[in-house]
């Protein structure tokens, strides 16, 4: 029944701090073989009888199909609410249930074109693995990492190993350029002649990555982060308005049709103030006086 997705009890074998984040490695047999960069895993939190019923979703940072422990999966977790705090407090040999790999991965270019990869905060987690896959295809890889502070950057050292150039920005100037990734992005795209810009991070950043890429004549592929209750496509909570090949906008599930979308297909105009409204021209949109 699995069709590439597995549900396994994952034993934690390593947990370490990485700046403001925790980097966790779980044993997850059968998951690594099918996983691709940009996909994610959904973890239960709090143990089998916990009152926190909903799964928490995390980008796959890395997988390794066979090691001393069998297949493993790595995630980078920012302790935010109850569930992520529980995860970051786990110790070696603790277990939690893992479902994955989920969602659609970053599409890879068929030609060896230069690429820019933009990560905001922990959003950089899936990009190093993506960088390796791109370089295997002969693509030059330029990484742009941004965060509020140095502690909220993830993977600057790792980035230097797997990318041709690394540009860093922080809001407070504690490392790299002071400012946002969108300040440096036009220059990086121009200097590298990039054809594709990959982005993962907060929605506001993905929107500006899309705008900058369009202005520079590059295609943006962005991994969105929407609130998810199930992660597997059954609850309809994780939707956002996306224009399809037929030009029509639909509210689509980011957990199965995403999390990666072409940036210019996402209806950024529908997002404001932490809410997303249904565009009036979307298929089945509520009409005045209707539902």
């Amino acid at each position, binding site marked *: *029944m699995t069709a590439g997705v597995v549900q396994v009890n994952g034993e934690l074998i390593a947990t370490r701090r990485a700046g403001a984040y925790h980097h966790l490695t779980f044993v997850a047999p059968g998951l690594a073989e099918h996983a691709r960069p940009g996909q994610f895993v959904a973890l239960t939190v709090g143990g089998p009888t916990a009152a926190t*019923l909903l799964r928490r979703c995390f980008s796959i940072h890395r997988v390794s199909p066979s090691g001393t422990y069998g297949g493993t999966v790595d995630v980078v977790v920012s302790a935010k609410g109850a569930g992520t705090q529980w995860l970051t407090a786990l110790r070696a040999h603790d277990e939690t249930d893992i479902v994955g790999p989920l969602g659609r991965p970053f599409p890879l270019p068929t030609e060896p074109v230069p690429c820019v990869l933009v990560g905001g905060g922990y959003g950089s987690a899936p990009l190093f693995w993506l960088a390796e896959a791109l370089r295997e295809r002969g693509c030059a890889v330029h990484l742009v990492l941004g965060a509020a502070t140095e502690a909220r950057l993830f993977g600057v050292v790792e980035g230097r190993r797997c990318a041709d150039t690394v540009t860093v920005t922080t809001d407070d100037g504690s490392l790299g350029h002071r400012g946002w990734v969108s300040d440096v992005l036009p220059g990086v795209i121009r200097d590298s002649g990039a054809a594709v810009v990959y982005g993962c991070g907060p929605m506001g950043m993905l929107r500006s990555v899309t705008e900058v890429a369009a202005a520079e004549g590059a295609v943006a592929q962005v991994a969105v982060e929407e609130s998810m209750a199930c992660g597997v496509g059954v609850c309809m909570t994780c939707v956002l308005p996306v224009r399809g090949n037929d030009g029509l906008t639909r509210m689509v599930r980011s957990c199965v049709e995403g999390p990666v979308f072409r940036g210019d297909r996402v209806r950024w105009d529908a997002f404001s103030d932490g*809410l997303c409204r249904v565009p009036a021209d979307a298929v*089945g949109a509520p009409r005045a006086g209707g539902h």
Partner: protein
Amino acid sequence: MTMLESAVGVSAATSVDMSTDLGGAVLPSPMMTASGCAANGRELHRFLDLRELGAFVTKTVMAQPRSGRGTPRMAETPSGMLNSIGLQGPGIDAFVTKDLAWLRSVGARVLVSIAGNTSGEFADVAARLRASDAFDCVVGVEVNISCPNVANRGLVFACDPLASGKTVALVREQLPRDIPIFAKLTPDVTDLVSIAQAAVKAGADGLTMVNTLLGMVIDTDLLRPQVAGVTGGLSGPAIRPVAVRAIWQVRAAMLEGRLPRVPIIGVGGVRTGRDALELVAAGASAVQVGTAAFNDPGAPARVGRELQSLLAERGFARFSDAVGVAHERIA
């Protein structure tokens, strides 16, 4: 437990007859998904074989495609969640050609959940369902009357006995006699039994209880409602005692002769076999697993296996003997 005892436990469990009769539809298992908690099957089929369930319950479908509401659509709550999806769906025509046809192709028995903005739209949806090529996989229709009635200032059908009865009667006319219909009730009413009476009198062959409870969550950082729809439906283990109470009250009314005895499909907060047994003992002839599937996508099938073992441990040879058993055990 010794080896011998555990071996006996296993064979006894598998020997419990789990079949259930739901108003003429005889199903091999009482276990079902809950509408809106399993989409239309493809996603869940990766985690469990849909044929293992007594029936697969589809997401409520209406006449036209619907985008649903904006986001955020959910908030986690203690042992549950609040949702405000707004009945997103493809509309009945796309549903029957794509989703129902697929469910039929994998051999699922399907309980189709339908709704309308008006009673007439419910009937229209039922008629188009009946006319579809894949109709032979349908074992019943769940009439989701826990949704707003546009003709009555948006008052939920299931809060009004007249509107409930009218809707059920119109749907009943559109479907063959051998296809049982179940009215899905909300517990957010003063007198649940009177709504149940109206639905059964109008031709419902059974009742599904309960839909979500109306609730609300406020984001304390932004100091505004957390879901875009302001209020939402509360579900999950937190509401299980409400489901048990609702099933109990309606079953008791049936035993007292205040309404005809029809099967009840229990739903609300089931996460384990023990939870399911509570609903069964209160009077449920089948059990749906909703929110718990977000935690464990295999839950609808797993709960069935756990329920079977619990029945065996308690000496039941047939699932049907446990239905409503708690009513016989009060002083």
